[in-house]
């Protein structure tokens, strides 16, 4: 238990945040921005991601606590700090980790001016809400919480490991409007979720007529964990077998799903541009290797009632303890089900309003980058909105950004983001073209980089592409 706690706490802030790629959104210098809005304005003619290196994305966060909060160097006791945090945090606080690795990414502009793009990426996504009552029960016990109803429904967590195959189209249909769509096929390698749980546990002092001192009552319990891709792993022997089995599912071997990304970019005026997108509108249909564990029912525990039966020599009394265990299992059975289930993907919404100024003409007379006819601005400022649908409702973030094309081979974007984690998240992304070779890196929470322990979230994307501009 302690080791588990240590691992969880140590991971806070290092892994990755909840999928918001506010720096990459709208950053048209980087082909991967097309993954965030399939309807963005594409400036290049072709691109190829360097396999396995075209996008490496980490994002991790914890809305209620940082590593520093727990492990800071100080005279006070670490257990006091944990106690304080447990009571400070709410059941809507959460821990998330997301990781994505692009295996392949490519795109080209066809003769009909449609920009086609496609690829494969692998994604890991995890979220766990803070089960405050369970944490209090584990940390403090029930002695000081008589009559307090511990909420079993606070348990809410999901985890997914999948491969995504995608193909998208993008076209500028009028001077002002560019639209795009991307279809995705998900191959889920491993997935679990425990959401929509319910029930309470309470210890009350029995009155005069009660059978014993206390009544320990579980009421309306309904707690389930749905898994897919897990049952068959249990029988495997050793890590190498598990790894090869999981990787085998990467190529359409797992549970399949479909989804779509949609997006557009609209030039309201010469300077003002509106864009928006929805990603992962879809679902995964878990039917293979599915196992659901569900515990439900009501039960009141009073202890063991001795009845002192008259016994002859050698006779044994009632098996009170086994009877009690049987009774609990009967009243709150833990069922193992094999029902298929449908899991909706966490839909992500991005939107941006950008104001551009200063004409950018990268190559002298011929404005080669700018085949669409609109103006590429030297500088852009604007607002962005991000939202991801999570089990307990959407998580949102607002961003102010400044994007500047420094030279024809270097551009940078700075962001200031307000989200569930903090009000002081400054991010910076840089994209450089060295010949046809493009490299980009984007990270947020830069203010906290001098001491990552204080950061409640970290997000990082980097990658390498080959970009071929219009000739």
């Amino acid at each position, binding site marked *: *238990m*302690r080791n588990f*706690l*240590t691992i969880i*706490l*140590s991971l806070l802030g290092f892994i990755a945040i909840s999928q918001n790629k506010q720096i990459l959104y709208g950053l048209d210098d980087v082909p991967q921005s097309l993954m965030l809005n399939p309807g963005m304005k594409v400036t290049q003619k072709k691109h190829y991601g360097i396999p396995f290196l075209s996008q490496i994305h980490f994002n991790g966060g914890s809305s209620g606590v940082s*590593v*520093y909060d727990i*492990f*800071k*160097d100080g005279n006070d*006791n*670490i*257990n006091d700090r*944990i106690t304080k945090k447990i009571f400070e945090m709410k059941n809507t606080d959460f821990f998330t980790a997301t990781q994505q690795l692009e295996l392949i990414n490519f795109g080209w502009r066809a003769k009909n001016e449609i920009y086609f793009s496609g690829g494969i990426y692998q994604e890991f996504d995890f979220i766990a809400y803070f089960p405050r009552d369970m944490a209090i029960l*584990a*940390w*403090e*016990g*029930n*002695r000081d919480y*008589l009559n307090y109803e511990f909420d079993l429904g606070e348990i809410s967590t999901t985890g997914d490991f999948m491969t995504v195959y995608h193909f998208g189209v993008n076209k500028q249909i009028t001077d002002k409007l560019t639209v795009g769509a991307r279809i995705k096929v998900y191959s889920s390698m491993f997935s679990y979720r425990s959401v929509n749980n319910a029930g309470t546990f309470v*210890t009350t002092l*029995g009155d005069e007529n*009660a*059978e*014993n*001192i*206390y*009544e*320990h009552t579980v009421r309306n319990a309904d707690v389930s964990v749905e898994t897919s891709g897990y049952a068959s792993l249990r029988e495997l022997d050793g890590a190498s077998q598990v790894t090869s089995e999981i990787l085998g599912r990467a190529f359409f071997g797992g549970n399949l799903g479909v989804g779509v990304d949609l997006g557009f970019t609209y030039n309201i005026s010469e300077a003002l541009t509106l864009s928006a997108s929805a990603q992962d509108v879809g679902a995964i249909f878990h039917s293979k290797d599915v196992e659901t564990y569900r515990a439900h029912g009501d039960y009141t*525990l*009073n*202890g*063991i*009632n*001795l*009845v*002192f039966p008259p016994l002859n020599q050698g006779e*044994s*009394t009632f098996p*009170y*303890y*086994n009877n009690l265990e049987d009774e609990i299992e009967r009243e709150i059975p833990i069922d193992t089900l094999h029902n298929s289930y449908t899991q909706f993907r966490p839909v992500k919404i991005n939107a941006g309003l950008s104001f551009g100024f200063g004409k950018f003409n990268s190559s002298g007379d011929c404005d080669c980058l700018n085949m669409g006819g609109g103006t590429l601005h030297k500088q852009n400022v604007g607002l962005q909105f991000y939202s991801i649908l999570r089990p307990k409702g959407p998580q949102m973030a607002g961003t102010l950004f400044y994007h500047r094309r*420094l*030279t024809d081979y*270097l551009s*940078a974007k700075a962001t200031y983001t307000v989200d569930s984690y903090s009000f002081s998240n400054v991010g*910076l992304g*840089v994209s*450089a073209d060295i010949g046809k070779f493009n490299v980009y*890196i984007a*990270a947020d929470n*830069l203010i906290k*980089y*001098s*001491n*990552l*322990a204080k950061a409640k979230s970290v997000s*990082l994307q980097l990658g390498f592409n080959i970009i071929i501009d219009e000739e």
Partner: protein
Amino acid sequence: MNKTLSLPIFAVCVCLFFTACIQDTDFDQAEDIALTPVVELDLIYFNLRASDFFDTINSNPILTVRDTTEIKFLDDSSLQESLKRAEFYFRFTNSIPRSFQVDFQFLSETNDTTYVSGTSVSEGTSTTPVITEFVENVEGDDILQLTKANKVVVSVTIPSSDENLEGILNLKSKTTYFLEY
């Protein structure tokens, strides 16, 4: 901006990403993390009638009645490691006009006695039941003995009884487990 200037800028940005550090923290403190829950849990309860102490068929008094239950969680290895103290609380409500001796004998799986405890219960009357409370605090080396047990034998002894004896001896009990993980 010319090339000579922007390359260093890019380099600085990249450096920034890779020089991020963790300061003013001490991860050795993880060793000190201790969960110390205090758990209240019902134990056993019973209602013994005065008539349970008299065999009406043979007209013989039964001076001691005895019953046994397993308490399997007690010798569980994880509880053995984490239990620091256990406080038993017994509350007898006696309306039988006799005092009682009640003994608790903890036995291991192989029926070796690992821990014993007991108390006397004051005599009551049918109109005004008398409450006797008894607390047994177990800690230190005794915890090792207690957590070797996985059953408890409860013996209730009455000094004398007859067929006209009336009343009820009620027991309610709980244990407070002081744990540390």
